[in-house]
């Protein structure tokens, strides 16, 4: 049987494109924003530090410090915009036989991992995530590091439930 033959079947096969993916928790945007803010503060702080150091030496500035500052602020705004839009692309779904996770704005990836190939599942919660009641679900396969999934920003309860479901299925197989 060739691929052509089976393609007739493929129309009846469960379709990944028909699965309605669930967006991750809105609260996770706050964590992203906080992390980004920290980075931006450091960046802008560096500009001022540079200004301070150069002025102390009384050297002549080739360009005004304000241009640099505007460039940095522009970069920060753009960066935040991109990560905000990318946030909306983070979606996941759990099917009977596999886990689907999609993310990425500039390069959009949609990974599907069959549950029968999962080696173990891990739930990790950072300090911030605990505060917002979120969790990160890490799914490990035997494959290259590229085929491991790490789904951030799940509501804690849901992460635990998914973990239980997957664990039960893996153990049921053995």
């Amino acid at each position: 049987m060739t691929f052509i033959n089976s393609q007739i079947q493929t129309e009846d096969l469960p379709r990944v494109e028909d699965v309605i993916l669930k967006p991750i928790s809105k609260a996770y945007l706050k964590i992203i924003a906080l992390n980004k803010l920290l980075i931006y503060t450091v960046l802008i702080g560096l500009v001022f530090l540079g200004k301070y150091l150069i002025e102390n030496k009384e050297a002549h500035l080739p360009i005004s410090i304000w241009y640099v500052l505007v460039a940095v602020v522009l970069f920060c705004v753009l960066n935040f915009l991109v990560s905000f839009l990318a946030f909306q692309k983070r979606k996941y779904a759990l099917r009977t036989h596999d886990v689907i996770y999609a993310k990425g704005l500039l390069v959009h990836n949609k990974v599907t991992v069959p549950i029968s190939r999962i080696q173990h599942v891990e739930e990790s919660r950072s300090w911030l995530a605990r505060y917002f009641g979120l969790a990160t679900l890490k799914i490990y396969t035997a494959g290259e590091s590229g085929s491991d999934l790490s789904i951030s920003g799940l509501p804690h309860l849901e992460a635990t439930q998914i973990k239980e479901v997957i664990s039960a299925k893996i153990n049921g197989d053995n």
Partner: protein
Amino acid sequence: MEITDFSHPIRQSSKGIIVIFAFKTISFFKKFFVLFIAFGLSIVKNQTLGGVTPFRLLLGLITVLIVILVIAILKYLNFKFHLSDDDFHLATGVINKDNTIIPKSKIQNVYIKQNFLQQVINVVSLKIETAGDKKSEIEINALDKATALDLKSKLFAKNNVVNAVESPTQAVVKDRDVFFKVTPIRLLLEGISQNHFKSFLLITTFVFGLYTELEDYLKALNIEERIEDYVNFDEETIFNLILTNAILILGAVLFSLLFSVVKTFIINFNLEVVEHQKTVEINKGLFDKVSLSLTPSRIQNLVISTNRLKQALGLHSMAVKQAMVNVKQQKNFNIVALEKEQLHYLINKLLSGYFEDEGEKRKPRPYYMRIATLEMLLFFTVLNGLGFAFLGIDALWVNLIFIPLAVLYVLTSYRKAYYRISENFITIGSGVIDTTTQILEIHKIQSVKLKQSIFQRPRKVVSLVISTASQSVTIPYISKSEALSINNYLLYKVESQDRDWM
């Protein structure tokens, strides 16, 4: 042959002291290599350094060697192993005692290796690999060959009864069917017909780096003369310059050729593929002799490569990617200089039921060429920019050669790109100078990924990344509907049939 009793704790062959000593000494000198150079140089220059004379230095060196020897002896005395019914036991450690127990059923691979020193004193080392993390492997440095083979078969002996699927090296001695043995001539051809571009680049950067280092030095010596030379830039000097460069490049090409040939010889000397009932064994190496066995159930990907020249000479190489094998060992699973029939036979042995022409041959979308063209355009810009900056407007003549080559590159890479999906296998072809074919079994897939950049979205072009336990392969730039149907088909295949990936 004296039969060794493995049931009681035994030490390795006493020659092990030499091997451990040599390893320790080499690693010691490697660690302090830079220090030695600096120290040695200043002593040669000044005859003394802070009261350290060459004699005292020698004395110190001897002391260090004696200390290492004592450590080696202690290590040897405290290294004991034995076999029980189901487990392999190993006790090591001089001060901190370690006791390792490996259940036989968890052993993934047993290698027999022999480096140059071990060849001289006629011992082999035996390496046991488990499925755990990368560090959990055991090496016994010095055993005589008969004992090693005996131990190897005993390690797998119980395994066969308990777990019939995993049975590498069944009857090592009984049916030893040497299926393929490389001749020196074919090895030579293999070395010559290699893609020299890589070794050429390596050597060029090395030479260039050396040259710039020396150039500074030379400049410092006779800077005045040089400036005068630059001023009197007549026809003759330009000609000489071109001639010198041409000779330099020719030399580099010859050198890289030699480099490839020697490298091929050292790694693949006496390459031998031995067929057992279920497994295939590879033996090879000049200084480091290795003996490896391949188990079909553990193989994840096959990568077959050849090029125009090699194809004409009937040379094909095959790399076997196995799961649970560390990275350093992975590159040893290469078989070079195979004839076409031998290659097909071997593929069939390792992947039963594989037919080359099964499944429709499909190609990526022409979008592929657009990406390749963009890559070349980037290269073009960098090349021209650098040329213009350093050599002036005349450097742009290089485009006369570059542009046809770039066009050829784009067209060839697209021509060679294809993929086939059959009932049980995926085949992906690619390459420009080389022709590479990747084969994997569908039931060994670990995950499937659809990848699409923001520019590809309006064109409905998607790449499909398929991961197995040892490698990820990409079907590049196919139409979205096709990618989705392949994605669904592969997932259906993996999830509906209850087959293990290993």
